[in-house]
């Protein structure tokens, strides 16, 4: 049965106020619902529940935080003291802490349910937290009495319109009767990734509404918890706009000719090449065409803004002037210990803020390093790419190939060539006792292009693309190209001591 918003039986949302979590939960918990929040010690359960309580109190609601742990509330609040959401002025009027340890010890589950009912009714509480569910469920009650307790709690919560959160450190989920009964199950986890740890939240069950499935990264900072919903779970909701047919100059006249008029507007181009082959220089040329009508953004992971401006100056490009004029924005991120969705959100925010039309991402390797589980980068990038296309953004993305010289070009993630619209290859070729830089276009969305190889040089007045190579030229020494993806689990090399290009 469907329920519309005017249906009085429709359960109201009770927002958590935790940034990102309400997006995952489709608006928040449902009033009258009972939810288990599970996580090992240190996973962030207590912070999460308190943050929700303080937010609830700040909106005029009343919350009750009950514990069955032998831990004083003073100590609990001391641990929370450094978190900015803590506002002791709401205690005890709007947020009350009670210990249910004695009732549970002396009267069992019957004493506990009566205490909770009494306190909730007395204070007209609309959010109840029971911290220490493991102590309740491990107190050797029979399955029947545990089911009875949970059912009584559910009936009470439903008729009181009260959200109930049961916090447990129990890692076991199988065969626990309460897990099948409750309205939702949230799991907080702390997973190891390349030597650092990544906090993740997953909603395994949520009755009555749709939610974002899968794992979502979260951070605990001085502001409390912030959840980063997986962008690829959100972005497909963006309706696709019509694909424009116009072209954007890549900033090098001869390359525009190779591309039969430039890059297709609202397309994604990947520029692949080894370190020093000219990828960043090409991106700087692309951004040199940014204007008030076509705002540009450089979103990079390796060169800082100051270094980029210096590199551009060495190419005869006035990137600093464009930044000063507001035509280009430079955003730099360290590629280490980042949350992929945080980066993605910042990128999309920067695009929205200035209505960016020319986007250079330098480079894909930085995204891979920030990705956490390596198998999600291609899905994440596909979502970002679709979103940029829908917003009319033309993206130039650089990716480093592992091989400096040779027949194989290794892409940093599997499947990327199928996701992008256009593919430009930069390579070094050894011929006549020196290295030559070659540029070629391998793929261009919906358009013919010049398929011949060209040598190019990076000079103090920019990239100079030379005439197409002829038979018998250095190209015959250039082996056939084979494109491969790097193994999904291999760590990506960190670029160091980079030179311009």
């Amino acid at each position, binding site marked *: 049965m469907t329920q519309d918003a005017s249906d*009085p*039986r429709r359960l109201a949302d009770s927002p958590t106020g935790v940034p990102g979590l309400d997006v995952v939960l489709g608006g928040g918990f449902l009033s009258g619902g009972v939810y288990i929040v599970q996580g090992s010690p240190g996973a962030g359960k207590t912070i999460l529940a308190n943050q929700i309580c303080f937010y609830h109190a700040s909106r005029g609601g009343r919350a009750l935080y009950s514990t069955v742990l032998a831990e004083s509330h003073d100590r609990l609040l001391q641990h929370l003291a450094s978190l900015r959401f803590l506002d002791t002025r709401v205690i005890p009027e709007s947020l009350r802490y009670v210990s249910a340890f004695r009732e549970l010890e002396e009267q069992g589950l019957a004493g506990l349910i009566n205490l909770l009912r009494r306190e909730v009714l007395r204070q007209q509480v609309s959010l109840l937290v029971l911290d220490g569910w493991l102590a309740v469920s491990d107190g050797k009650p029979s399955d029947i009495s545990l089911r009875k307790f949970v059912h009584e709690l559910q*009936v009470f919560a439903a008729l009181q319109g009260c959200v109930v959160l049961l916090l447990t450190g129990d890692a076991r989920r199988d065969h626990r009767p309460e897990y099948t009964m409750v309205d939702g199950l949230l799991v907080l986890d702390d997973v190891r990734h390349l030597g650092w740890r990544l906090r993740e939240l997953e909603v395994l069950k949520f009755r009555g509404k749709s939610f974002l499935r899968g794992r979502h990264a979260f951070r605990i900072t001085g502001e409390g918890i912030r959840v980063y919903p997986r962008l690829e779970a959100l972005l497909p909701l963006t309706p696709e706009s019509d694909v424009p047919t116009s072209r954007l100059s890549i900033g090098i006249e001869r390359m525009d000719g190779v591309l039969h008029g430039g890059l297709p507007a609202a397309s994604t181009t990947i520029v692949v090449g080894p370190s020093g082959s000219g990828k960043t220089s090409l991106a700087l040329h692309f951004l040199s065409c940014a204007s008030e009508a076509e705002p540009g953004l450089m979103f990079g992971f390796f060169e800082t803004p100051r270094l980029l401006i210096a590199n551009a100056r060495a190419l005869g490009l006035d990137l600093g002037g464009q930044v000063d004029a507001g035509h280009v924005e430079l955003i730099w991120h360290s590629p280490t210990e980042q949350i992929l969705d945080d980066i993605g959100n910042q990128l999309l925010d920067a695009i929205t803020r200035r209505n960016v039309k020319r986007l250079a991402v330098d480079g894909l390797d930085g995204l891979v390093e920030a990705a956490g589980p390596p198998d999600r980068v291609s899905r994440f990038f596909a979502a970002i790419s679709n979103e940029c296309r829908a917003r009319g953004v033309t993206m130039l993305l650089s990716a480093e190939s592992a091989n400096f010289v040779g027949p194989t070009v290794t892409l940093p993630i599997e499947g990327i060539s199928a996701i992008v619209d256009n593919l430009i290859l930069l390579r070094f070729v050894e011929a006549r006792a020196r290295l030559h830089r070659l540029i070629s276009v391998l793929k261009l969305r919906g358009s013919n292009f010049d398929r011949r190889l060209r040598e190019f040089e990076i000079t103090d007045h920019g990239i100079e693309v030379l005439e197409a190579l002829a038979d018998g030229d250095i190209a015959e020494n250039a082996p056939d190209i084979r494109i491969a993806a790097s193994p999904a689990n291999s760590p990506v090399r960190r670029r160091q001591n980079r030179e311009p290009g």
Partner: protein
Amino acid sequence: MHTVLVVDDEFGVPELLEFVLQEEGYRVVSATNGRQGLQRLAEDPRPGLVLLDYMMPVLNGPGMLHAMREGDYRSIPVVFMSSLDEDAVRKAAEHEFQAFLRKPFKLAELVDIVRRLLPQD
């Protein structure tokens, strides 16, 4: 002390309403179907108010209301509780009842109605 009769077959509901109304100073007796509810009406202490679920086994809410109004319990106020809408319940019930609570209702609403229909001395 006034007595309230709660007639509801849903596990946990009579227990909860008993707890809530006892906190308000009422005595509470309960039954899980209409036939059992009619038996409770005949016992002491005689209830001054009936909280009546609609759908129950053996004898449902409208059936119990019919028996009450046709028998000796015409004057006892009845509050129907149902997830159906009020018009549907009034149409099916045939007899007058004093208040309606659509499930899931708020406990505060229930307490307000009970206080109004069965004020404490």
